[in-house]
């Protein structure tokens, strides 16, 4: 079985610093990590491979330094790493990203065998859209399984996969035909520590590096900023909602003060009054 895991190198959000003068995010010198959600996808892929045989290929699109994240994935136990990098990809939104990745995946299919399963994390911690995975599935016509918390069974002979999907109000048990694209939920497993032999192999491994041309992208207007209909108008920190504290001054005894206070609260939030009255009515 050939499994591809799409990962993304993201800035370590715990260590992002803001330039004290310009108030912009200082990307330089901020350590990068593999998008944490992708690690659950990678571990799940490694487990499937270990159980059923086959290969795990990790794929990322990013600047040349994203090779660091691919090497880490190799040290965890992936068999092959592919870096899709080209300056034409800079500024891609989810539409352009899913296009470029799907082209790379098509090339992976022809070079290393068609993947039965493609994994992604449920979303990235820098973009937070959760759109790239479904985008790839649509473009490649893979069955789409999002927010998966557990893989119940894979039946290679029948070409079927059964999974648990966390949905609002419960867990769905889903079965579909492979090939399928799975976006993996967090906390579904724990990333392994690669054995010394794996780590040694990873330290020496060559990362397969492709540019736009290599994956057969001819129409560059579908890539990068030009291929991205999403426009970032402004980046800002939301203003803190500030309800100012108010001093309620009342003459009289404690009871009078309490009543004035309650009236003030109910005045501002009538729903609270309704709730309390209903509660009082039903609990007497």
């Amino acid at each position, binding site marked *: 079985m050939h499994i591809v895991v799409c990962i993304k190198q993201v800035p370590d959000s715990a260590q992002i*610093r803001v330039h*004290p*003068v310009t108030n912009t995010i200082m990307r330089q*010198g901020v*350590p990068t990590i593999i998008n944490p959600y992708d690690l659950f996808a990678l571990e799940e892929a490694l487990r499937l491979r270990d159980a059923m045989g086959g290969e795990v290929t990790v794929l990322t699109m990013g600047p040349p330094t994203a090779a660091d994240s691919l090497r880490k994935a190799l*040290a965890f136990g992936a068999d092959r790493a592919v870096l899709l990098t080209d300056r034409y990809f800079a500024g891609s939104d989810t539409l352009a990203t899913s296009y470029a990745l799907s082209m790379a995946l098509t090339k992976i299919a022809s070079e290393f065998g068609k993947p039965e399963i493609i994994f992604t994390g449920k979303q990235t911690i820098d973009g937070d859209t959760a759109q790239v995975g479904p985008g790839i599935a649509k473009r490649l016509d893979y069955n789409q399984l999002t927010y998966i918390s557990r893989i119940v069974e894979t039946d290679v002979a029948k070409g079927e996969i059964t999974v648990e999907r966390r949905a609002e109000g419960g867990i769905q048990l889903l079965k579909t035909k492979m090939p399928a694209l799975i976006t993996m939920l967090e906390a579904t497993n724990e990333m392994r*520590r*690669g*054995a*010394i*032999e*794996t*780590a*040694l192999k990873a*330290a*020496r491994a060559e990362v397969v590096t492709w540019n736009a041309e290599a994956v057969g992208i001819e129409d560059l207007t579908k890539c990068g900023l030009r291929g991205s209909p999403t426009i970032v108008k402004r980046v800002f920190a939301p203003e803190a909602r500030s309800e100012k504290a108010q001093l309620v001054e009342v003459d009289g005894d404690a009871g009078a003060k309490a009543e004035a206070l309650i009236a003030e609260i109910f005045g501002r939030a009538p729903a609270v009054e309704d709730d309390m009255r209903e509660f009082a009515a039903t609990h007497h």
Partner: protein
Amino acid sequence: MIEEKFDAIVVGAGPSGNAAAYTMAKEGLNVLQIERGEYSGSKNVQGAILYADALEKIIPNFREEAPLERHVIEQRMWSMDDKSHTGMHYRSDDFNEEKPNRYTILRAQFDKWFSSKVREAGAVLLCETTVTELVKDTQGNVIGVRTDRGNEPILANVVILAEGVNGLVGQRSGLRSEIKPDTVALAVKEMHFLPRETVEARFNLKGNEGVVIEAMGTITKGMTGTGFLYTNEESISVGIGCIVSDMSESGVTPYDLLEAFKEHPSIKPLLEGSECKEYAAHLIPEGGYKAIPQLVGDGWIVVGDAGQFVNAVHREGSNLAMTTGRIAADTVVWLTRRKEEMSKANFLEYEKRLEQTFVMKDLKKYKGIPALLHSNKQNFFGLYPKLISGALQTWFRVDGVDKVSKEKEIFQSFRRSRTLLGMMGDAFKLVRAWR
């Protein structure tokens, strides 16, 4: 089972490990370097000053690529009491030379670069991997290492221990004893961000010129130690360190020391308006020559901080680390070419070569200093800086008192606090230890 046997395994990717791995890999040896941190430099802490000479002997054209902050054109030596500092400053335009002598650096960036050179040279680097113990054969020769990635050993002809000050692998493998608290200093430092122009205006600098301040006195509250302040491109490194046993006796925390140092009236204005971006702490081996552990054995060599190669008097360490790493590597290359054994007897060549360099010559020269300063810490780090400051204040203050009376007052201030014999003894011992 890993079939491959490496020519050498280097434990650690700091300056000594990188120097050793680079030197051997460049000479065509099959080198494996193992680092516990996420990348080379992720665990490394230093002031930090880079001494060009030591690196030049390894990578001659390093200035063209290495991430350097400022070249040092001015050195300030300060003796401090609570409100004053007595300074000896040396600044020279000669230091604005084509190939500057010293640089301030940020270790996280510099080490990453150095590590990239090591990999370019052909060494295999394994990060996020901790060497747990050395593997020995039945005769007790070291033949490889085990890591925290399972029980499987990795074999090599020689293991170079560039593992840093604690020497945990050496310790666990019974090659050395635990480091003693009176031979290591605990230093803490902060990085304070300031706009480039502010750094330059505040320290009277232009371009990439830099200033270094080394300070001693009551700032260490009677403990053996020093403080420092270095200018980087857009930041200032400020820190202070003391011998660990002094700290545990006094109960003063490193953090409190640094806070007080930053509040000192001579330091505070230099940091004004800055924002602290980073806080780091590290141990520094300061026991000098007498604290050097066994350096070689059958199949193993110790380099860098693990060998206590720090000249505390001159605040030099990374250059000793790089030099010992390079010379150990040279020795291994030399023995490999001659098809000689990696035995203790043959590794005496490493010690012999070290003796010829500034490393051993300097450490020998100052071998008495650490113990002397430590045993007289109250005087050297408290009393004398106070007396010097008091004397100079008396001397410079114009208050109607005649100069002869001032001289008498100064002389008496010394006599009151320390007997003539005691002072002469301290001076004598210091001179003797210095020679």
